[in-house]
């Protein structure tokens, strides 16, 4: 088993990791780079808890060999969290109580961020469709949809 060195951009910084063949981006982020906001709910592409942005597009890091994204730019929730205070989407999730156990929350937020980049004023149906791949087992989806809806407002207000 020959490990390989893979370089990519994480939170705007160049990183290099030593990865075993076919190691996933999820494994590398969680076990080598300390980005444990990237969760590990199923490793089957079924729960969305490991959602990260690759060049701004949401992808499931559990299904993505890290070698495949060499040279590309990866964004996790660690990258979005300001040194002080919260990202507007985080603020909205906190205000709406869009979490209970918190395990699905980072994936939900990453997806919400990507959605609002593509579509700053999504309808409720568009939010529901976008969240189709992210599973929550505690709160139900209503407070999460409320949070994202509120985040559209706060983005507007912040401009």
């Amino acid at each position, binding site marked *: 088993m*020959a490990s390989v060195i893979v370089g990519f951009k994480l939170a705007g910084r160049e990183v290099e990791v030593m990865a075993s*063949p076919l190691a996933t981006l999820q494994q590398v982020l969680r076990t080598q780079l300390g980005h444990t906001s990237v969760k590990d709910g199923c490793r089957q*592409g079924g729960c969305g808890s490991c959602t990260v942005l690759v060049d701004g597009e*949401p*992808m499931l890091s559990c*299904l993505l060999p890290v070698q495949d994204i060499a040279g590309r730019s990866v964004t996790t929730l660690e990258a979005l969290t300001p040194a002080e205070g919260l990202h507007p989407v985080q603020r909205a999730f906190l205000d709406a109580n869009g979490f209970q156990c918190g395990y699905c929350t980072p994936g939900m937020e990453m997806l919400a961020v*990507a959605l609002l980049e593509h579509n700053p004023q999504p309808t409720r149906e568009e939010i*529901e469709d*976008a969240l189709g791949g992210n599973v929550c087992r505690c709160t139900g989806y209503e407070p999460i949809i409320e949070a994202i809806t509120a985040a559209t407002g706060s983005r507007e207000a912040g401009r």
Partner: protein
Amino acid sequence: MTVSSYFLPASVPEALGLLGEHGPELLVIAGGTVAMPLINEGISLPGRVMGLRRAGLDRVERAGAELRVGATATLTQLVGQGDVPLLAEAASRTASWSVRNMATVGGNLFTPPPGGDVATALLALDARVVVAGPAGERTLPLTAFWTGFMTTALASDELVTSIIVPLDEGRTAFLKFGRRRANTPAVVTVAAHATLEHDRVVSIRLALGAAAPHPVRLTRAEAVVAGSSLEPAVIDEAAALAAEDADPVADAVASDWYRRRMTGVFVRRILEQLAGRAGRDA
């Protein structure tokens, strides 16, 4: 098995070279959405894996009267193209946004049932598969691609490189029935392409997914519909034949009985849609 090598060829010749060198035990993946879940849980234990994400097969381009879709073009790319609305719709109804950003069109041809919604649409569009091997390229119609459950006409030293979709005039329709609205495997999927002259059906292709070992054309239903004006009696007969010709299995999504019933219901609905009539209840 601990994966000893993961290859990421930068071209088709390089990929074919690796396939020739390492033989049939080289697992080929593209988007990873089918194979990686099995590898992650230790169900699949490949020693060597080849990924096609960087092999330069991800273009979607219009060439004359055809749309050429690279094998590793993502479902999101299909959603974004405007030449074939049926394909955009089928792709948009497949899996979730994040999965569509990864899953490939070529990979959809190999997805175990009840997957393959895009493949079902491609079948209705009479698409052809371009296959590269040591002896060069060959093209085969999609109808000849699948040979059985999880088996294809692809030789062990060949790769699918692109899918060619004819840009035929005609009406199309796509219906997928799942247990929820988004990110759901199909109970049944039906796709149709028809040319009509006034009210008369000149030609029709009806494809069924999720209720057969692989996407299939419903040839007996097509024969009944061709030449008709989609009268209610014709639609009834076609729907009944389709339900008869379905070859479904029971899985966690639906029972075989239910899939057969729903095949009839959704073939009826798609034909009513083609006829421009609002659906009747089954």
